[in-house]
């Protein structure tokens, strides 16, 4: 059985604001030997924060990768703002302008400075340097990284690195932020602070957040908490 987990409000206006949609999505590996997603349906509205909780291997990260176009479903349809993700022509535009990723590991380029790391998405999207710099300074101010812009990644603390990754993900003003265990590698105190910042920024920017996490205390602070188990979203839990 698969449930259609809809956006929080079911009124037509809310439906019109759906930015992320998965319809009967299946995904398997090893020629079908391992079925990771079994008919997942999910919708997320503009500005909504959705937490995916569940045990390791239940398909949370796979679902995020499908939303970001990093992988393609065996069956079903994944769309962002009504545009199907897994068409190559759409994919680049999606990664450059619509979607930002934050991973458990910061995945920054160690030999570059914080500033250079954050400007990478603007280079990819062909955004001019001045506009990129202005946006970076805005984000750096919000995340408290202004003083660290010229520092190399090796010189930053774990929290600073994850905040840098957050800045990088938001550089091109994406409408959706996909976060895969964004605080999973941080201690409890830093984890709370980074998550607080994450929620604050997505709220300010009107970004839709879909986050995979094991941390239920953090997950409960999202608009919706969805339980994933055995490749399915079982039922929505009111956050």
């Amino acid at each position: 059985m698969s449930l259609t987990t809809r956006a929080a409000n079911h009124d037509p206006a809310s439906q019109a604001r759906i930015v992320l949609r998965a319809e009967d999505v299946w995904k398997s590996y090893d020629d079908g030997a391992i079925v990771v997603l079994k008919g997942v349906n999910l919708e997320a509205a503009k500005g909504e924060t959705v937490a995916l909780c569940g045990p390791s291997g239940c398909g949370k990260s796979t679902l995020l990768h499908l939303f970001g176009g990093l992988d393609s479903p065996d069956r079903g349809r994944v769309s962002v703002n009504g545009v199907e993700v897994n068409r190559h022509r759409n994919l680049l535009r999606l990664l450059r302008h619509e979607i930002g990723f934050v991973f458990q590991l910061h995945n920054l380029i160690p030999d570059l400075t914080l500033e250079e790391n954050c400007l990478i998405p603007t280079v990819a999207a062909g955004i001019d340097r001045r506009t990129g710099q202005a946006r970076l300074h805005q984000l750096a101010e919000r995340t408290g990284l202004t003083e660290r812009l010229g520092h190399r990644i090796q010189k930053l603390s774990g929290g600073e690195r994850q905040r840098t990754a957050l800045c990088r993900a938001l550089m091109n003003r994406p409408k959706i932020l996909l976060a895969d265990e964004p605080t999973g590698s941080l201690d409890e105190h830093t984890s709370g602070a980074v998550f607080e910042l994450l929620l604050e920024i997505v709220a300010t920017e009107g970004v839709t957040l879909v986050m995979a996490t094991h941390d239920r205390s953090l997950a409960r602070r999202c608009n919706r908490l969805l339980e994933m188990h055995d490749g399915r979203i079982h039922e929505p839990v009111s956050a």
Partner: protein
Amino acid sequence: MIFLKLIVTNLRRHRIRSLISIAGIAFSVAAMLTVVTILQGAIGMFSGILSSDSEIIVFERNVSDLFFSNVPAAAAEEISGWPMVAHADPVLFGIVSSADHPIITCFGVTPADARIRKAIWLTGDRLAFAQHADDVVLGQRAAEFLSAKLDDHVPIGHGVFHVIGILKTANGFEDGGVFMPLSSAQSFFHKEGVSSVITIKLRNKDDTASFKTKIKAKFANLIGLEDAEFTRSYSQFKILKATAWAVGGCGLALGGLGVANTMIMSVFTRIREIAILRVCGFSHLQIGAMIFGESAVVSLLGAVLGLLTGTCLLYALKLVPALHGYVDVTIQPVVMLIVILLALITGIAGALYPAAYVTRIQAVEALRFE
């Protein structure tokens, strides 16, 4: 700017590997430059011998090497009598050896030859040339390596010759050569009544075409070519040039393999990073351009270093006494340009596989790559 920074950062990350690749390209470029320049210089010198105070060379049709060309003396006599001809000088080329010197170039010439008339005579009397059958004039370097002075008798090949003069010439072959009277050379090399070539100076350069036509009409076995035309078409020169470029090309191909190895290793060690660039919106084209950019930087740095090394090497070779006069260090701009272009092409070719590999990297797989 960030894009360039990424390229430089990737190269700096593995400094030793990058430096080895640069050195590989540099040595290849230096080898190519040195070999090509020396051979171009040698060809230029040989052409210079032929074009001394002349603009046309007449030789036996369809010979692969001028040493095998036999031009009858009667032809030289007849041609020199043509009104359009200012002078026609028969020259016989030969190679002999003496103790410790396996190759000495001999020129059988007449006293009227420009090589005798216009050379700088360090010692001896130009007017005494060809008065006796065993008279020879030595180039300055030949005199040095034969330890010969004016009036000495020197063993050359199977004969002993009387040195009646030593002359100085800018041409390496002539400077290391021996000038004999034409008749003596014909006898010495068993080529009585023939010369290897006739060098022609016309009274009016406009008569060149009609001169060549006349040669063709009068002497079926001979051909007349302008100096530049001869340099372009002479098969020995073509073989030498092809050999030089082939040797240099092989060196460059090895350098290219070094670049390919560096780029492959560079890509393999940052698969995850490349996946992140994909996630940040980099297209395959942008990532490919980054890989090609890295190899282009390696190739260009290698080419510049190679040009410097090659130039130094040429100057060093010029200082070697045994090669004095044989090495022309004038590097032709076109050679320099071709060498740089070849280095760049080699570098880019070396990045083809890594770039193709990068486009096949699946971001989702690479993100799991540790």
